[in-house]
Every structure is written in C-alpha cells, then in structure tokens.
C-alpha cells in the first residue's frame, strides 16, 4: 500500500466519512442530552426529594373526648399553593387518655383505600376488598398484610398536633 500512493485518497475519504459519521452521532447525542437531562431531572426531583415533615395543628385539646376515635383533616407535607383541597390528608385520631393520643393513617395497608371507623364494632373497615382492623390497628380480617400505619401526635400548648408523613406504601415503606 505504501508503494502505491494514489490509493490513499479513497482511504482518507473513508476516514473522513467515518470521522464525520462519528462527529454527527456524537454531537446528536450531546444535543439530546442537553435537551432531555434538565427535563428529566426536573420531573424526577420529587421522587428523591425528602420533604421535611412538619407538625400541623389539629385543634384544642379539650375538643377531643377520651376514648373516642374521630376523623381529622390537615394539610399534607407537600402542600403546593395550587393543590386546593387535594392538599388535605386525613387521619383517624383517638384520645386514649388525658395526654395520650394515637393517630392512624386512613390508608388501608392492602391497596390504600380509605378505611372507615365503625364505632360500635370498634373496627376499622376498608370498602375495597374487605380489609378489617382492630382498634389498635392490627389486622382482623381480609387481605391487608400489615397493621394500619400510625402518625406521630403530640400535645403542645393546649393544642393537639400531628406530624405529616408520606403515604404508607405497603411493601416498601422506607424509600
């Protein structure tokens, strides 16, 4: 080949083509990355963000009767200004004694439907697939694999406060 200089030109032509192909593909990939990455990051951010859990006031201490389980509403962790009523979360709150409260998530641990408290039977019942829980949140019947999740509650300056938290996901709480 070296003693035949004129055949060099098609080879260098091929080189040039090969280089330009790579250049185009490489730059296209770069363009693609520049266009999509910010958007992907933007969309995925909430997945990895850990919103700070906050305390929300529920009401005055003396509004709650000892031994009663009532439903309460409060703003959830990620309350955007435009969320309106959908920023609200609910919980079942029971005053156990003078100072002690328990709050249960309303999400059934089966597939997340809202459980209802049935006062007379002292049971939480789920409307979806027949999940039933005892008053302490333990599973009484049906498909739920785990007891009802609990919120942290405290009494501060005469107000009952609840700490917001994520939706309890059945098999994968700690993500």
């Amino acid at each position, binding site marked *: 080949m070296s003693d035949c200089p004129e055949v060099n030109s098609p080879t260098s032509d091929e080189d040039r083509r090969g280089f330009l192909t790579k250049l185009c593909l490489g730059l296209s990939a770069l363009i693609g990355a520049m266009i999509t990455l910010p958007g992907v990051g933007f*969309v*995925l951010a*909430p*997945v*990895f963000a850990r*919103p700070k859990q906050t305390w929300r006031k529920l009401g005055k201490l003396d509004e709650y009767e000892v031994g009663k389980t009532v*439903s*309460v*509403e*409060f703003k*959830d*962790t*990620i*309350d*955007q200004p*435009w*969320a*309106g*009523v*959908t*920023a*609200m*979360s*609910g919980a079942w709150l029971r005053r156990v004694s003078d100072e002690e409260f328990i709050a249960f998530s*309303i*999400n059934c641990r*089966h*597939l*997340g*439907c*809202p*459980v*209802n408290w*049935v006062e*007379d*039977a*002292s*049971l939480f*019942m*789920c*409307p*979806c*697939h*027949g999940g*039933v829980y*005892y*008053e302490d949140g333990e599973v*009484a*019947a049906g*498909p739920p*694999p785990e007891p009802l999740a609990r919120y942290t509650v405290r009494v501060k300056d005469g107000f009952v406060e609840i700490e917001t*938290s*994520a*939706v309890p*996901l*059945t*098999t*994968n*709480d700690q*993500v």
Partner: protein
Amino acid sequence: MLGKIWNWIDDRSGFSDVVMPMLEHIVPRDARWWYVFGSATLCAFIVQVLTGVALAMVYVPGGDAAYESLVYITNDATLGYLVRGMHYYGATAMVMLAVIHMTQVYLHASYKYPREMNWMSGVVLLFVVLGMAFTGQLLRWDANGVWSVMVAAEMAARVPFVGGYISQFLMGGETVGGSTLSRFFAIHVFILPGLIFAGVGLHLWLILRHGISEMPKADQPVVPETYKQEYEGRLEKTGVPFWPIAAWRDVVFSAIMVAVIVGCAIFVGPPALGPAPNPANIHANPMPDWYFWWYFAVLSMLPPELETYVILGMPVLGAIGLFVVPMLSNRGHRAPSKRPWAVAVVIFGATAFVVLTIYGYQKPWSPDFDVKPLPPEVVRSDDPNIQHGAVLLRDKGCLYCHNVDGFGGYRGPELSVIGNRLDRGELVIRINNGGYNMPSFASSLTAEELRQMVDFLLTRTDHPKQTPGEDPSN
C-alpha cells in the same frame, strides 16, 4: 378557479402521485366485514383527539380547580355535556374495538409471516390505550379518581426494589396532591397520545408494506419461503383497490360507531362526577371503569401471598405473552378450523372476562357500609332480647359482611339459617374468637350483648317458630 387551486395543491403536495396510489393499493377481494375493526379503532381515536382537545381548552389541570372545571363543563358549558360524554364513550369504544380487532387478527392468525411486526406494534398500542383509559379516569379528579391514584401508587409500590420510587414518581411526591394531577394530565395529553400517533403511523405503514392479509383458508398454510410471491400472485389475479371498493365498509362501520358514541353521549350522558376530591374524605369506594372490573375482581379474590405476584406479574406477563405470539409461530395454518387451541384461548379469555367483570361489579367481597337495620318481618320476634340482638347485628358490623334473609353484605357466609348449623356454644366461640377472615369481637361486646346476638342468631333456622329456650345446648 377551484380546479386550478386543486391542481396547484395536488402538484406541490403530490397527492395524486403519492397518496392516491397508497389509497388505491390492491387488497384481497375477500377483505370484507371482518376487517372493519382496525379502522374503527383509529376512528375512535380521532374522536378522542378532537373531543380531548376541546375539553382541554376548558379543563384546568390543577388540584384546586380541576373538579370545578369539570362541573362547569358538565353543567354549564355549551355542549360541554355532549363533548364530555363523547370523550367518555369514545374511550370505551376505543378499548373495546382495539380488543375486538386484536381478537379477530389472532383468530385469523394474520400475525404470521410477514406481518409479525404489525402485531407487535398493535400490542404496544393496546397497552398505551389502556394507559390512556386509566389516566383519563383519574383526570375526572373526583373522590373516586383521587383514591384510584392512591391504589395505583400502592400497586406500583410492590415492584421489588424500585417500587417506592415508581409510586413517588406517579404521585409527584410522597402523597397524592396538587402535583399528582398535573403529572397525570401531562401523561394523558402529551406522552401517551404522542406514543399512539407514532404507533399508529408505524402500524399503518406496515399494513401498506405487507398488504392486508387474506381470509384464512384451510388449504393455504403460510410458508414464509414462498408466501410473498403467492400472495402477490393472488392479489394480481383477484385483488381490488382499497379505495373505494374495500374502504366503504370501513367508512360505514365507523359512521355507525360514531353515531353510537354520539347517541350514548346525548341520551346516557357522561359518567356522573363523584363527591369533590378531598383525600381526607374517607367515604369513598374507589371503583375503576368497567373494562378494568375483571382485574379488580382478580385482586379481590387472591390469597394475600399470591397477590403481589399477580399485581405485578399479570400485566407484565400479559404484555410479554401477547408480544411474543408471532415469534412462537409465524408459519403454518391460519384457518381457525386448523387451530383449535387458538379458538379455545379466545373462548376461555372471553368467558373469563365476562364472568370476572360480572363478579367485579357485584363486589361481594366488600363490606356493605350502607346496610339498613333488619326489618321486623325478618326479625320475627316480640322478645325484646332477640330484637335487640338483631339491632346489635347491624351496629356491631356483622351485617356489613353477613346476609340474613336478603339483608346485608355478601362477604361472609350467609346467616339466614345459621341456627341449624351452629349451637349456642359454637356461635359464642365464633363471635368471640373470630376465625378465618372474621375479626374477633371479644373485646367489643359485653356478655349481655353477646347473649342477645346469639339468641337472635339461634332463631335463624328453617323453623321460624323455634325459640332459643328450646335449643338443646342451652
């Protein structure tokens, strides 16, 4: 003048040169009414695009206003009722027609050589369409819609390792709220429709490339080595141009379908909006649109150990199973008479769908929170003890799940003649301890209440006259 304009358009756009030959491509003469479902699915999609664009001009995809904007569309906006109805029934039509089209293609084995990719692109389209149906249901953003997101997020959370991330992606954070709706809106109006456009483009291009398959004949198995030649030979002899010789049936069928959609929208109307979407409002009973009921039924009947596998496995296996159909056999017989297994699969699938749908609708596994107290003609007793027992049966929630003479839920065993089966001692044990799928009531009943309930239950026999005092075990 008009002619001139047309000539200019035709010359510059190439309609007569490029598009007409495509439209007039030769199709088998026997492509008759069997073949109208695909084009009707496409037509239903067009209905969805047009009504969807119209709705999007008024609908506000924000957690605070979406519900109100839907109420406005339904009740106040001019023709809003009609457009929303058409979008709803169009979705139903699209799902149904896609499934029917697919069943027909499967029965006729039109997916065999050289049309494997037609089928595969169709399977992808089917799942995108189901995704559209699901996200669309959530955009209704009433209590049902909001709780359905929750259920979807919980299901997604069961994926091993990354489940939590997937469900947080769906919810746009840790809870269902303002950002969730915006996400579903973007998926419903940008991402999935884009995929459908691309998929339909590919699907149509493949039809032009490989031609419409003929009606299967028992003596014409597909032999890839010679198929194309023979197919083209037959077309040359007996084929007809698609436009308008074959196309008229598609148009007639699509016209009927659109008329049905409009008719349903006018006379039945769009689905009623549930209560406003307050996630703190627990009085909701999430229920998907009817074409998902079968799946709901499956989920409700499964033993808990299998559940996660089915929730995750069924869609994935279903998708893969359908996708690989042409890879399993792309040659050989196409006639249903030579493929009994294929026919059996279709019959089995259709039966299962119907049975599970009915079952899903009746939802006997769910406690019935709305039960009324037992009426006196069912209680049939003047004894205040027994009467109170009957009242307790409802108050303590027994009737939510158990049925007495037609009153109550169906989740647990019927109690109409329980007195024949169990004696006092057995009843007490059941109620106190619970059992498989029944809570124990030991801590929530006083001895007095328990006795009254059991007294009442013991009257539930074939012999209404019998009183608890006559019970031998007493």
